[in-house]
């Protein structure tokens, strides 16, 4: 056993406990906000990427390549230190003001440069990946599906909406869930810009009372719990793959 001894109380009581609670809330909020933004960006990029107009395809490709092939940490640092500075001075002052209405339950500020930069950075980065996963799912739909739809008189967008995308989503739902989970895990990088999420709080506990082992163990378990719960929820929201597999289990009357 040597000098290995644990003091869980030192992490799970008093100030450290309060910090952890705040950390969990912050991680949850930034994950939720980032996921919503990522979804929006994914829809937009996918729309441009699969449009029939070349002119709108290439900006989408450029955005996708830039954000897919550079490190997220660099992107977050960029948005925080450079991107924020590019906003009009009035906006910056407004964001830095106190906003009681923008205080989420639990005391996490929504309108802070840290929260905004982290949400924005995570949203774009993940949105790009989600768009590409769904596009891959689209490529996997048999060309006959599109032909059947066209032969019935569907146009490009309606064919996508009613016939191709539902199948693409079913094809790609597992990897898409993976991207949302990644977003949650990657929110730990926002510690680098001082967002007070789980990793940030764990390090604060470590420097406060040197309970590194306990603090990191608790932090890890928190990520694990959030990730597991999130995966289950997303799996349940998703399209049912079973209907597309021959002989699989079905729902319905």
């Amino acid at each position, binding site marked *: 056993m040597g000098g290995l001894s644990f003091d869980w109380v030192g992490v799970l009581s008093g100030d450290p406990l309060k910090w952890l609670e705040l950390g969990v809330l912050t991680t949850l909020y930034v994950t939720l906000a980032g996921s919503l933004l990522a979804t929006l960006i994914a829809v937009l990029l996918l729309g441009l990427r699969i449009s029939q107009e070349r002119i709108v395809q290439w900006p989408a490709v450029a955005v996708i390549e830039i954000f897919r092939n550079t490190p997220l940490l660099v992107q977050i640092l960029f948005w925080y230190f450079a991107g924020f500075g590019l906003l009009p001075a009035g906006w910056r002052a407004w964001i830095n003001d106190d906003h009681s209405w923008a205080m989420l339950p639990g005391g996490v500020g929504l309108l802070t440069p840290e929260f905004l930069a982290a949400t924005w950075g995570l949203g774009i980065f993940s949105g790009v990946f989600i768009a590409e996963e769904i596009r891959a799912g689209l490529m996997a739909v*048999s060309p*006959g*599906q599109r*032909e*059947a*739809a*066209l*032969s*019935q*008189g*569907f*146009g490009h967008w*309606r064919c996508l909406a*009613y*016939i191709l995308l*539902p*199948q693409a989503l*079913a094809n790609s739902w597992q990897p898409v869930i993976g991207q949302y989970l990644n977003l949650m895990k990657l929110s730990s990088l926002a510690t680098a810009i001082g967002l007070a999420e789980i990793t940030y709080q764990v390090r604060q506990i470590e420097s406060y009372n040197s309970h590194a082992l306990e603090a990191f163990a608790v932090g890890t378990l928190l990520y694990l719990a959030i990730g597991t719960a999130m995966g289950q929820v997303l799996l349940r929201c998703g*399209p049912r793959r079973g*209907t*597309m*597999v*021959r*002989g*699989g289990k*079905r729902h*319905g*009357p």
Partner: protein
Amino acid sequence: MIEFRDVHKFYDKLHVIRGIDLSIARGEVVVICGPSGSGKSTLIRLVNQLEPLSRGDILVDGQSVASSRGRALRRLRSQIGFVFQQFNLYPHLTVEQNITLALRKVLGVVPEDATVRAVELLDRVGLADKRFAYPAQLSGGQQQRVAIARTLAMRPKILLFDEPTSALDPEMIGEVLAVMRELATSGITMVVVTHEMGFARELADRIVFIDQGVILENDKPVDFFLSPQHPRARQFLRQLLSPLHTAND
């Protein structure tokens, strides 16, 4: 009803349809046959612009296919039923939804009426009990009958079939042919690419034999089967009737 005027189709440099002129009258049942790769699928896919024409034009009910775009093209397509070799049912939808989707989203039929039409048609193809099944739960023959019902629901002026029985196990061919036989006698205009010479002999008004993108025979079934003019047509028929003795003909 359908008029091909000097129709050509190139896939890049490959000249697949090489100057086809053909008139099909309202209510006619025309069977198109020919060796593999002769351009049969391409020819009927040109009619509803699943493939764009390279040269010439096709008139459907007087409307030029070559110059139809956007809304006009979608309208034209909705009036031409197409039945695929691979069925191409929508796997994420039930049988009923497969039939009602385009009715509602393309033709704007209200859901209740669409459902009524679906139920009627499923009854007609003998699958009333499969209304809530998914395509993956059906046999090939059943899937093809649903695909036909889906096509009929649009009340098309013309039906195009591309080897509708070629992907089926032999014991399922009959059930699909039975549905097609009923259609052929109902007075709708049909163009059928098939190797089912029984169907052709019994139900076709005309048989068109094409090879390498040109029409070699365009006859009544009796003439085609009893006295084909062109040597390639004679060879094709011999192969079809006794596939084992073809190698050294």
